[in-house]
């Protein structure tokens, strides 16, 4: 393996890890606070991507400035996260928080199936593209390699912004403090006046927005096909489980490990590329059943 290929694999992995983190952090946040493993997270990712492609193509077709596709990605992601995420929480999840985890898993799985078909009804099965943000940002030369600036600069920057904003939000804002309090003890939080239902709703919507944002930012580099949501939910679960469910900073690190390991596998032994993330997950969980950063008893985010 030459240095060139190693550098290429590293950059590939970095870009991929950034997208993985965006989706996994939403999944892990929702699990950490609500205790629900949201399988429909994958659909929110896919629908965020489709909505971005539709909005971006429309913007370009109308002759707007191509740079507008960047705010377009965020608008589409937030719209999908707030509307769809909000509806899922209000109509379904709110009724099952005290129920058996198996039932919760089944309900979110059912939502995933419904959304998967809804997606086919709306966007059909032909692949979608919207690579405008990729082309307007152009290429950069990094480690001796020409790479798209979108993938090696914009995506990692977006992931870091999300990571640090989320950390700041949880530790230094009123809503963040309420989320931490409800996570630790719902009843004690209610006894000091915190509206736990509202905290759950906000947390789910924020998590859903991250899933949709992951999809939105994936749009310029991925061709959108049916089944991408299923693929992503399994992958982001692997990332979240490797880190320990509920661990936000941990998700960033395990996304990096899995992203980079996978892209090295692409170059070194392509046949194990697909199972690479799960291989890492299994190895980590064998040694540390609670994940790399997971703790034994207390649920924390």
């Amino acid at each position, binding site marked *: 393996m030459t240095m060139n290929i190693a550098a290429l694999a590293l950059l590939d992995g970095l870009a991929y890890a950034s997208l993985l983190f965006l989706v996994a952090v939403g999944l892990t946040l929702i699990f950490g606070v609500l205790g629900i493993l949201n399988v429909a997270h994958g659909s929110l990712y896919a629908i965020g991507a489709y909505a971005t492609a539709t909005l971006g193509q429309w913007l370009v077709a109308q002759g707007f400035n191509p740079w507008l596709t960047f705010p377009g990605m965020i608008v589409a992601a937030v719209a999908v996260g707030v509307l769809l995420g909000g509806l899922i929480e209000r109509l379904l999840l709110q009724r099952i928080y005290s129920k058996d985890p198996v039932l919760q898993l089944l309900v979110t799985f059912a939502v995933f199936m419904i959304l998967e078909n809804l997606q086919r009804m709306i966007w059909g099965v032909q692949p979608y593209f919207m690579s405008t943000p990729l082309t307007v940002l152009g290429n950069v030369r990094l480690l001796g390699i020409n790479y798209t600036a979108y993938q090696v600069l914009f995506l990692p920057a977006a992931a870091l912004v999300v990571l640090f904003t989320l950390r700041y939000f949880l530790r230094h804002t009123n809503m963040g403090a309420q989320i931490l309090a409800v996570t630790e003890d719902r009843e004690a939080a*209610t006894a*000091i*006046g915190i509206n736990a239902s509202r905290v759950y709703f906000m947390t789910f919507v924020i998590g859903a927005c991250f899933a949709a944002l992951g999809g939105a930012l994936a749009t310029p580099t991925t061709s959108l096909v049916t089944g991408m949501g299923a693929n992503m939910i399994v992958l982001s679960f692997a990332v979240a489980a490797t880190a320990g469910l509920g661990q936000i900073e941990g998700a960033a690190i395990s996304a990096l490990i899995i992203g980079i390991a996978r892209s090295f596998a692409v170059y070194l032994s392509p046949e194990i590329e697909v199972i690479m993330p799960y291989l890492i997950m299994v190895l980590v969980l064998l040694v540390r059943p609670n994940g790399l950063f997971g703790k034994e008893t207390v649920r924390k985010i």
Partner: protein
Amino acid sequence: MLALSKVDASINNIPILRDISFTVGPAETVALVGRNGAGKTTLLRTIMGFTTCHGEMRFEGADLRAVDPHRRPGLGIGYAPEDRRLFSRFTITQNILLPAQVAKLGETETASRLERVYHVLPELRDLGPRPAGSVSGGQGKMVALGRALMLSSRLLLLDEPFQGLAPVLAQRYAEALGRLREIDPTLAIIITESNPELLRSFASRTITVERGQIDSDASNERTT
């Protein structure tokens, strides 16, 4: 001020309390005594809205059951649970201030309420910056009382505050309640306790709970 009438309460469809009726007036200190498992904690949790209940509960004339549990602290009801339940991710000061922050109280109002807490519990001033997970059980009880005091301007519910407290700390806790009585004579206080003797000098009335029902309700003769 607080009036319960024929209240039944259950947790997960298991009936715990039956036919509870009593009233508490302002400035009253009521000891709620009974064996472990008699339903004392459930009674306090019912007032806070954490159980499924039937019957009538009125607070200052208004129907308390119609008020969402998270809005009840805003009526001036403070609750210190038996097992402290501090938020370990926060410092002691943050734990005490969180109720005020959630209620979006103004800066001056928050400061004056914090002063009231410090007046009652001077030791919290020094504990302030420590993480809530690091304090001992007894200190934790003081912090839980301080946190409950932030919002309790009308009614204070204390669940087994003396349980497991070292004698010195129990003494300090009782002194703190004495100071609270002094600065806030109209506050109503309900304290649960399994040892009826402990509160006899402090509470003006003792309600005994036995197997989920009220066994007796009598005012205490002042012996001290």
